[in-house]
């Protein structure tokens, strides 16, 4: 915050210093000649940064316009030509107020002038206003530099955020795909929204179990790779069929396949959709039977009733079913016959108008006692004809 006074007259320097000191400006430097001032400012030194011995921060220069060697006008011109020093305001101290002389001073880059003989009030007012201007300019410059830096940082942050966001999105898409592989979409959505346990009660759904008969025996004779490939082929067809009929595959257990109709989005015709599925599954197996030389057949069990469906646990997500209905459907399958689709009384009651059944009589169901069951044969022709 130094004020540099350049004047060849001792009394003039003393006067300037004294006036400024009396107003509280204590950081003052003086020079007798322009050359000495340049030395103090290191105008001749390296251009970048204030060199050793230079005044660290000169905020204002009071320059006598008329000096023996180099006059104030020329000195001011040289200062303004220096990239490092050009922002230091220069007030010319002049005896002449002739317009031409003042024009010369302003053309050389002076910010203001003060006339001799000096008047204390005038000098201080001009010094104050020039210093204020300089401070304001410095502040603006600093703020501009700050803004540029903040802007750069912001841009960097945004770029890295963009990148992170992109990676996050890719991760999310991946986990979403995985989640949708194992869970129905409405269920996946609810889990994503933070629900940790899902257990919905459905008053009516139709559960199907299918088991590939004699698969174990086939497995004993064929290489493991072929067996898995065969099973994969059959189950993949089942998966596509389930999708086609709007049914929810629950899981496969070994060579058994479990699916449900009416879940998770309820539909009134779930029993019928499951019946269509069962008939299609049997057709798939007939095709394979020809391939495998009559070795494979399917056993299907169906039951309709209330179930609980949901996701429990946090480790391995699986949309599963609970309840007596599930057990009975499983029994319908295990107690059924090869190539037969065995349904319970409950399912039969829903479907008997549209499908042909063969009564199977009473079957002893473990834990349930005797149950009347039916074997689904196919769609009634009349019902088929009634279809649009």
């Amino acid at each position, binding site marked *: 915050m130094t004020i540099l006074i350049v004047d*060849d*007259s*001792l*009394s*003039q320097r*003393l*006067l300037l210093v*004294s*006036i400024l000191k*009396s107003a509280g400006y204590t950081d003052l430097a003086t020079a007798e000649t322009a050359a000495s001032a340049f030395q103090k400012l290191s105008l001749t030194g390296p251009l970048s940064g204030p060199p050793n011995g230079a005044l660290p921060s000169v905020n204002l220069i009071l320059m006598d316009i*008329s000096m*023996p060697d180099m006059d104030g006008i020329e000195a001011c011109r040289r200062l303004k030509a220096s990239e490092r020093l050009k922002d230091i305001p220069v007030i010319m101290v002049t*005896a002449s107020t002739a317009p031409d002389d003042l024009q010369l001073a302003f053309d050389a880059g002076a910010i203001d002038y003060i006339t*001799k*003989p*000096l*008047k*204390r009030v005038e000098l201080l007012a001009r010094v104050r206003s020039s210093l204020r201007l300089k401070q304001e300019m410095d502040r603006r410059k600093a703020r501009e530099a700050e803004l540029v830096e903040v802007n750069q940082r912001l841009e960097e942050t945004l770029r890295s955020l963009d990148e992170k966001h992109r990676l996050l999105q890719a991760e999310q898409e991946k986990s979403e795909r995985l989640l949708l592989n194992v869970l129905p979409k409405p269920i996946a959505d609810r889990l994503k929204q933070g629900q940790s346990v899902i257990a919905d009660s459905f008053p009516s759904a139709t559960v199907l179990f299918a088991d590939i008969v004699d698969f174990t025996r086939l497995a004993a004779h064929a290489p493991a790779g072929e067996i898995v490939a065969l099973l994969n082929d059959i189950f993949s067809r089942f998966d596509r069929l389930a999708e086609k009929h709007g049914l929810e595959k629950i899981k496969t257990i070994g060579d058994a396949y479990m699916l449900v109709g009416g879940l998770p989005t309820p539909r009134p015709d779930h029993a019928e959709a499951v019946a269509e599925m069962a008939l299609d599954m049997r057709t798939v197996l007939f095709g394979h039977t020809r391939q495998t030389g009559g070795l494979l057949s399917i056993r299907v069990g169906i039951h309709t009733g209330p179930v609980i469906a949901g996701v429990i646990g946090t480790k391995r997500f699986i949309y599963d079913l609970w309840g007596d209905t599930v057990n009975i459907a499983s029994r319908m399958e295990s107690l059924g016959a090869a190539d037969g689709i065995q349904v319970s009384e409950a399912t039969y009651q829903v479907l008997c108008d549209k499908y042909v059944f063969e009564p199977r009589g009473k079957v002893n169901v473990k834990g349930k006692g005797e149950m009347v069951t039916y074997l689904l044969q196919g769609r009634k022709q009349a019902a088929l004809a009634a279809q649009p």
Partner: protein
Amino acid sequence: MTNAGASSTPSTPPPLDLAKLAEWRQMDVEGEPSFLAELLKAFKEEAPGLVEGIRTAAQTNDAHKLRQSAHSLKGGSGNLGAVRLADLCAELEKMGRNGALEGAAPLAAQVELEYQRALQALETEINRNAG
């Protein structure tokens, strides 16, 4: 404005502008040497050389030196309110600038005289106020 010069008559302008001196007196700090005295001391250090410079420049027809010396003395005397001395210097400075030095020698002699008178008046004024 009162006339502080002891030997002046109402027709000649007073050697000192007392308002200027009063302005500098405002800057005096209690317990510190009078600013005006300091300023006078500095003036007395540089002025004799300038007065001498004006005299020789006028004698040797050195317009450049006349202009410079007169200018410097004008500044110093003006700051001390020595208006008559400053006016004389201004006239000599103009001569130097124009390179027209006719009549410079008698003016230079007047400067010497006026310088002494201004000094006296200043010292009287300062002592009067110090006392």
